[in-house]
């Protein structure tokens, strides 16, 4: 095999990236699920033909999928008995390299000149896959069967033709099934676009050259990641991040992280974390690993993503903890919430070592709220999802962004005008949560405060959020952001849910109001070092006086104590 000149290598790297970006774009524009179309909750990539390792992934894909699809592709490779051109496997089994059940993967063998060259795969978040609550974010499930339909790898398309029988099983087990065929076709069409573009790349540069380039790119990414890691001083770095509760038993869950950094490698030891839990806050191993990958990618965004990127990162399986869930532990909270706490633990552990690159803890919750019922005016049943952002942490350079999206996502919130068009609700406010930002030289961003009223009929509300017990911590002397807060106002009375950030099946009647305030970001650096200009702006804009670090810490400590 001839050597590849560095220019061709760069050209092939861009080419592979473009194949994935085009799949991402086509999938979003053609999708029905608002979670995909507006939320961009999807990802597309190219995977190695025998190992399933990541070759390239779309730059606009949902970050948490950065590491998961290689595991599910591997699961398909291990289980497939025969493969033909035009086959597409469907799989959402969390224990086979998955996340939660709503993330449905399509995995397609890619043949070049009659030979299997690679796999193309994508993940899309379906709005429903059955289970005890509409939308799948149950706060109370205790086994995976309650969470929805679980699909092992099966061929949904056989030689290019959809299998109507498998399709009918799927559509009979999920809500709002009538639009799903649109998502299924969009998801399959995206892979087809990838197939066409990858074929022309291979036609242009030749199979051998591309194959070799893939190998060199993997080595290059590993080398680049090692160079980044080398900038961190050797040592042991510890942190703890808290999940409010599992939704069933009202006790905090602890992510206990020890990073051993030696030379050009890092080991992530999570073995001291809490044991598996009853409720749906368990994380499957693919998600646990992926959360660490994405945290590192947030710290070093310039390193491209392929299997080599993760090579210098060692993650022993944290057996016996809630971060290595086994069947039938419920897992619906793992992709959206627990993963963000894992990433937070990584950020907090490394903040002292890399003060110029790191930032204080972001709000770190997806803020899922689902309201479902039947609109008496139209007779149609509906499920409305709201996701909201929160404050990001301050950094060496800037205050945190307000209403930033979840650490693991890039989903936008739907416009209020569109929600009010489609669902029988009215928003009373959508505002900056004044005073929610953690104080610091650079303060955190602000959380959001909103209130939504059911206008007519009856409905059920469920939500899975986090950071309700303690706010996102500050770093280097910065204060914590204010925690997440939910209040439900019914017939003149207001109550706070027992599990603070998680509950399901709350019966709503017309006029009932749900108030949500999402967390503010943590502060960066001592608040006393905040510049007079920034203080003047905080005052002028009425952002609310941030309390001192000590007050915040005391409040956080007493909240923890109260929980124990």
């Amino acid at each position, binding site marked *: 095999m001839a050597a590849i000149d*560095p220019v061709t290598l760069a050209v092939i790297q*861009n080419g592979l990236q473009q194949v994935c970006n*085009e799949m991402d774009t086509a999938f979003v524009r*053609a999708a029905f699920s608002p979670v995909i179309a507006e939320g961009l909750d999807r990802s597309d990539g190219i995977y190695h033909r025998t190992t399933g390792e990541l070759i390239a992934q779309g730059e606009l894909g949902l970050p948490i999928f950065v590491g998961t699809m290689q595991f599910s592709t591997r699961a398909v490779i291990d289980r497939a008995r025969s493969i033909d051109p035009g086959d597409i496997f469907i799989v959402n089994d969390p224990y086979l390299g998955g996340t939660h059940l709503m993330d449905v993967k399509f995995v397609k063998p890619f043949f070049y000149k009659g030979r299997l060259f690679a796999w193309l795969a994508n993940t899309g978040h379906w709005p429903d896959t059955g289970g005890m609550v509409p939308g799948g974010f149950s706060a109370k499930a205790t086994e995976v069967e309650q969470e929805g339909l679980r699909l092992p790898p099966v061929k949904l398309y056989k030689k290019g033709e959809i299998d109507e029988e498998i399709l009918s099983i799927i559509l009979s087990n999920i809500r709002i099934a009538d639009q799903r065929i*649109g998502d299924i076709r969009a998801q399959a069409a995206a892979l087809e676009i990838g197939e066409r573009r990858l074929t022309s790349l291979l036609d*242009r540069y030749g199979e051998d050259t591309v194959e070799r380039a893939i190998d060199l790119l993997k080595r290059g990414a590993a080398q*680049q990641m090692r160079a980044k890691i080398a900038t961190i001083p050797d040592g042991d770095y510890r942190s703890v991040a808290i999940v409010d509760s599992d939704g069933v038993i009202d006790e905090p869950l602890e992510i206990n992280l020890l990073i051993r950094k030696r030379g050009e490698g890092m080991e992530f030891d999570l073995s001291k974390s809490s044991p598996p839990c009853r409720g749906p806050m368990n994380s499957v191993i693919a998600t646990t690993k992926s959360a660490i990958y994405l945290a590192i990618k947030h710290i070093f965004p310039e390193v491209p993503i392929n299997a080599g990127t993760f090579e210098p990162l060692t993650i022993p399986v944290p057996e016996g903890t809630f971060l290595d869930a086994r069947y039938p532990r419920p897992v619906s909270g793992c992709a959206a919430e627990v993963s963000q706490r894992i990433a937070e633990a990584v950020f907090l552990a490394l903040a002292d070592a890399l003060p110029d690159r790191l930032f204080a803890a972001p709000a770190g919750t997806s803020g899922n709220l689902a309201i479902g019922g039947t609109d008496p005016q139209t007779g149609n049943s509906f499920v409305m999802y709201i996701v909201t952002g929160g404050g*990001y942490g301050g950094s060496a350079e800037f*205050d945190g962004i307000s*209403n930033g999206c979840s650490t693991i996502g890039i989903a936008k919130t739907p416009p209020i005008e569109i929600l009010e068009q489609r669902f029988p609700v009215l928003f009373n406010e959508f505002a900056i949560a004044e005073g929610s930002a953690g104080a610091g030289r650079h303060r955190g961003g602000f959380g959001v405060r909103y209130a939504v009223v059911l206008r007519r009929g009856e409905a059920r509300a469920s939500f899975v959020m986090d950071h309700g017990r303690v706010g996102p911590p500050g770093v280097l002397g910065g204060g914590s952001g204010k925690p997440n807060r939910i209040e439900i106002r019914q017939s003149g009375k207001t109550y706070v849910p027992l599990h603070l950030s998680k509950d399901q099946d709350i019966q709503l009647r017309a006029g009932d109001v749900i108030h949500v305030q999402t967390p503010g970001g943590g502060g960066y650096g001592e608040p006393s070092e905040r510049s007079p200009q920034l203080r003047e702006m905080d005052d002028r804009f009425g952002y609310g006086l941030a309390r001192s670090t000590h007050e915040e810490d005391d409040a956080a400590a007493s909240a923890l104590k109260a929980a124990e």
Partner: protein
Amino acid sequence: MGSVIVGCDVGGTFTDLILHDPVNGLQFAKVPTTTANQAHGVLAALEKTGKNPNGIDLFIHGTTATTNALLERKLAKCALITTRGFRDVLELGRRTRPHPYGLIGTFIPVIPRDLRFEVTERMDATGAVVQPLSEAEVRAVAEEMLSRGAESVVVHFLHSYANPAHELRAAEIIRAIWPNEYVTAGHQIIGECREYERGVTAAVNGSVQPILDRYLNRLEAELKQRGLRRQLLVMQGNGGTASSSIVTRSAVHTVMSGPASGVIAAARTATAAGFPNVVTYDMGGTSTDVALIQEGVPLVSSELEIEYAMPIHVPMVDVHTVGAGGGSIAHVNEAGLLQIGPKSAGAIPGPICFGRGGTEPTITDANLVLGRLNPERLLGVERSTTMTAVAGAMREHVGDALGLTGEQAAAAIIRVANDKMAGAIRLVSLSRGHDPRDFVLLAFGGAGPLHAAALAKELGIPKVLIPARPGLTNALGCLVADLRHDFVRTINKPLSAVSEQELAAVLSAHVEEGRSILAKEDVQIEDVRVFHTADMQFQGQTHILNVAIPEGKFETQALHNAFEQAYWSRFRVALPEIKPVLANLHTAVIGKRKPFPVDALTSRTAARTVADAKRGTRRVWFEDGWFDTPIFDRDRLPLGSEFRGPAILEQLDATTVVDPGNRIEVDVLGNVIIHVAEGQ
């Protein structure tokens, strides 16, 4: 009897002016842009032509006043009145961050929080009043805004697209006490749902309106003093023009008018040359703009985001910008891969060869080392540097890490840069289901013609068109643009549930309003053309696909079919089981001006033969190595001539590179057409 027309475009570096006089022909002027007050540059350019302004029948102006004000955040003090509970919509945005990876960033809302006020009022999504407007609160807030020094004001209420009554009344109350005309009602800028996007668009309008108004007043006063008798026409982002008195009401329409005007000129040039389907490629110093023209019409989008979290949802020519320009810096990353950008040397310090202190190699430096640019003819050089110094820097910053000489490193930079730009072209245009072989690549801007032939080869595009004046394209856009006014109405109903008569009435109301605006403008037009389009989606989707509707014929079945067909060609997906929904109706009312004779650009002193136009020979690098390459004076190439590359065509403001084997044709309009030899 023709009329004397002036097109004048203010760019980042130069202000360009073209004057067309039916008797004396064309005159060009290029002067440095005067950033503090663009009017000075405009007047200086006009003076250079020696033409008395009182003899000018039409003066069409492209200004970056609003674009710059927005991008540099040098905005007027604008206040907002909005629905109680929602003043932070403009600051909270839609839950995003600047980049998918990395959690550090910053965002500054267009209107700061201390100038955003709430009043009691509320509509629901059907346009029914939930809470009546408190007029007393509006009055009190208006006084408060004035006392805080607000110069302009935006009224932005929830669901005003469904029922504008509250917005209209509030605007009326404010106007009664407001000292100037700067009062914007959000729904009058765009009547579309989505509170953040509509709100930002309105806020931008209010924040640039005083700036545009002041600028145009100043310029018009100066021109009138010098004898100009007519109102100015101003270029808009949609590629059309509007009279100065009208354009200031919706000033947001002038944002991004510079790139739009280049694309309009390209469309006209290419159509005249017989090429209706075009990819435009405008490479400047820091970035490259790419746009698509189909059947002679540039694609226009109402969904563009001009920077992070800055959606401007008025129709704009769909120009995609890539961060690669002549000044983009090349470096080798930790993985040993050659990267171009995103860092740019900008104007200061600029490329190494400009001698303004630049030390890192750029794309321009690579072009120089490879003999593509003439070291004697670089524009804007301060202190000349030697070729060896530039090649040395190439080797040091790029070559050493890759085991390449300085010249080889330069060649590598060009290849990777071309690849990046080709990727952008593919992603914005060709991936939409078009076959590149049906398109022509039209290159302009200072650096476009340097790279166009190589890009075309990479993309499989068979022909490249370099217009007669690649560096004056934006000014030409002003000369050729028609008047244009856009309208939109949100419908949001399944196609099966709409009334054909009702929608036909919406469209004819658009047309009527457009015609009445055209009638008020003091410009001679030959014809009024109307274009209707519909934003369509399948029920349950949020993205839209824009489909044309024939004028005066609103038929649901025809629209249904057109949508399904468009959907199939874009996504290869058919969804017979799902209902199509009509989201929005758009209308563009275009006042066609008398066509500008594009061939007027060719009036110059051509040589008799190709050989006579030759200036000399230089060693130039192409993909297959170094070639002794003839250098031609572009302006002296005879019309209708044909010859083969390799060749370098030099003219005042651009250099065209023609690869070995390519065939060059100079058409009767003075365009250079490069027939690209097949790739590997």
